């Protein structure tokens, strides 16, 4: 046991008391049960789902009529592979680009002096509240005249535009709280703001960047409306949400099929989250000030 752990032990800090564990378990259970219901129902027929509770199938698994039909319908729909790849094509850049722009901007607003700083920041961040339905028609008109409709570049830019205010807001909150002395020592050592940004700020901001990356990824991956309007439904650009909506309806009209579709779509975001978990490690800040 490390020295630190020993010291904690002696202070009576139990690493995970039973009360803590019970509470965590309770919250996890309450949070998971709704989704569990969906998962179980995705393996049942529509008639079963609407006549008996899903837990009854769990309690008597042998006598239940499990079925793979829902998944079959969703997975064998012809365009699914292409739609999946299209989603990746759209989502990855539409996550990286806004984060990049936002990180640069957040750093600029937080640590550089220039004219119009407060105003620009205020306006930029205040736009978080704009509901994006308002932008659809004016932007589509512009896209039409610049032939961006149905192009990947067009939708990357659209998602960037819509996601930037929140991104800047979140990253600013983090970057502005970095200790001032690390910059001072860096500049004394001859760094330009650009190198200070790339060599210092970015590595230190990884938790914040990772946090926002997850949310932006999810938002874009699950987005339907922006893809529908700016990208379209033709098979060479249709993303997963569009493809699934064409099977089950965008508002869940055939929602007995949606159960399977929802889980198919959920897989990738979960993988992204789990793989980015390791960036949330304690002590990232400590010990990396001089770098």
């Amino acid at each position: 046991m490390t020295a630190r752990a020993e010291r904690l032990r002696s202070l009576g800090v139990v690493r995970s008391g039973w009360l803590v564990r019970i509470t965590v378990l309770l919250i996890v259970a309450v949070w998971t049960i709704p989704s569990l219901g969906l998962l179980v129902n995705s393996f049942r027929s529509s008639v079963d789902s609407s006549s008996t509770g899903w837990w009854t199938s769990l309690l008597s698994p042998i006598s239940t009529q499990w079925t793979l039909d829902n998944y079959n319908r969703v997975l064998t729909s012809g365009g699914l592979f292409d739609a999946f790849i299209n989603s990746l094509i759209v989502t990855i850049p539409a996550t990286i680009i806004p984060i990049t722009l936002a990180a640069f901007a957040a750093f600029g607003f937080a640590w550089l002096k220039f004219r119009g700083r407060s105003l620009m920041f205020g306006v930029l961040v205040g736009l978080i509240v704009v509901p994006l339905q308002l932008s659809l028609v004016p932007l589509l008109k512009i896209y039409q005249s610049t032939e961006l409709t149905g192009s990947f570049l067009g939708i990357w830019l659209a998602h960037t535009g819509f996601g930037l205010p929140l991104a800047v807001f979140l990253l600013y909150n983090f970057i502005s709280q970095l200790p001032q002395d690390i910059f001072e020592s860096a500049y004394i050592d001859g760094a330009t703001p650009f190198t200070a940004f790339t060599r210092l700020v970015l590595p230190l901001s990884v938790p914040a960047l990772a946090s926002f990356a997850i949310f932006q990824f999810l938002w874009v991956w699950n987005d339907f409306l922006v893809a529908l309007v700016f990208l379209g439904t033709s098979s060479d650009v249709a993303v997963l949400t569009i493809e699934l909506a064409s099977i089950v309806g965008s508002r869940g009209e055939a929602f007995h099929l949606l159960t399977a579709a929802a889980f198919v779509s959920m897989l990738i975001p979960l993988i992204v989250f789990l793989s980015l978990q390791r960036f949330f490690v304690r002590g990232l800040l400590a010990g990396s000030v001089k770098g």
Partner: protein
Amino acid sequence: MSKRWLIATMVAFSLIVAACGGDTGATTTTGGTDTTEAPTTTAEGDTTTTGEGGESTGYEHLDQALAGDFDGSTVEIWAQWLPESSEAANFTHTLEPFTEATGITVNFQPTPDYETALQVAVDGGNAPDLAQIAQPGKMHQYADAGSLVALSDWLNTDKLAAEMVPAFYELGTYNDTLYGVYYKADVKSIVWYPVQGFADAGYEVPTTWDELVALSDQIIADGNGNPWCISIESQEADGWVATDWMEDILLRTAPPEIYNQWITHEIPFNHPEVLEAADYMSQIWFTDDYAYGGNTYINATWIGETQDPMFAEDGPQCWMQKQAAWIGGFWGANRDALADDPNLPSDQWPIKPETDVDFFYFPQIEEEFGTPVLGAADMFVMYNDRPEVRALLEWLATPEAAEGWIERGGFLSTLTTVPEDWYVYPNNQLSTMVADATTLGFDASDLMPAEVGVGSFWSGMVDWVAANGEGTEEVFQEIEDSWPTG
């Protein structure tokens, strides 16, 4: 928004409709002399041969297309039918002969989130060539915005008027210009019941309102559950089922003039005749034990599952549902069967129409108002004017455009030139029902201004159900108050 033409046509054309029930085959509008020998009525469809100097279809651009003039071009057409649904599959199937005969590629885009997608596309300058629209009100909105191509400029409207049920032709016009070609019709005045269940219990199909009520009482007295399966929950479209009931009843309890004036707001929304219709509706919806599960069930159950209790293991728990024919695909196990294969023909469904579940005409209420039929329909409108687009639209106005769909079931045409023997159950009976109707009413909520028709009328009905039918006058007054001024 003046709909005086409705008044003129509604009653008058009933005679016309009766005359074109298919047996006589003669449509009676002026200038219709070419319809009796119109090549489009032959089942073999010899108009689809590529132009060897064949007979003209009567439509200029279609003739050119058939002669191969537009070979290689593309037309984009949107509809709200879900891409994996049987409607989309059937529409695709029915379009095939067109492409074969003309070489024009038809890019059919069934579009989810239709309400938003179409509007944004049109407003943003990215409109499709043709689009399906269910509500005349929507067509008016687009026409007012100048987005639609005026069809009367180039279409042979005389021919179309002669070959289409006049009410539908008229509904496609706005400000004396034709904007929409009606294509697919829906009949709403039917009630589904379990065949075997009725036979076992000795129930007879009611033909009058009093018999209907008596049957309902009988079912309760026999301890056979509740007579009616009713529910209206459909997510963001909550309430439209209730509006259909109101309209169907109003057609039976008041003269057609009242119905039309109600739509055009020449009488207030809560006119006494309308309130009287509401009372009839309350009789079925809110009498104790009539509706399965009571008013909570009505508001809380999704419309696809309304009829499930009819198929309960130990016999029907509710016995009648008033709903258009599309409901067949949602009966219990049919949902799963069709999820597996949307092209499954209805004689292979687990719960079969006609043999397992049949329908009867929603009965007459007051004899003097005869046997009206409530319906709705889909039309196609045009956004982009090109010759090949014109050709496709003209083709959609011919029976050939309906043939492929009709033979698969689930399609009722708006044309009078479709041969009766093309139809299968239930549309063969439905087209007769339409033909015999003393009045054909178009879905009123589709004709009213949107703030009411898809706004306060819907939500008002939901509120009324939540109150279990209490406060009828307040509910209808509120809807009346919400009618847009000017």
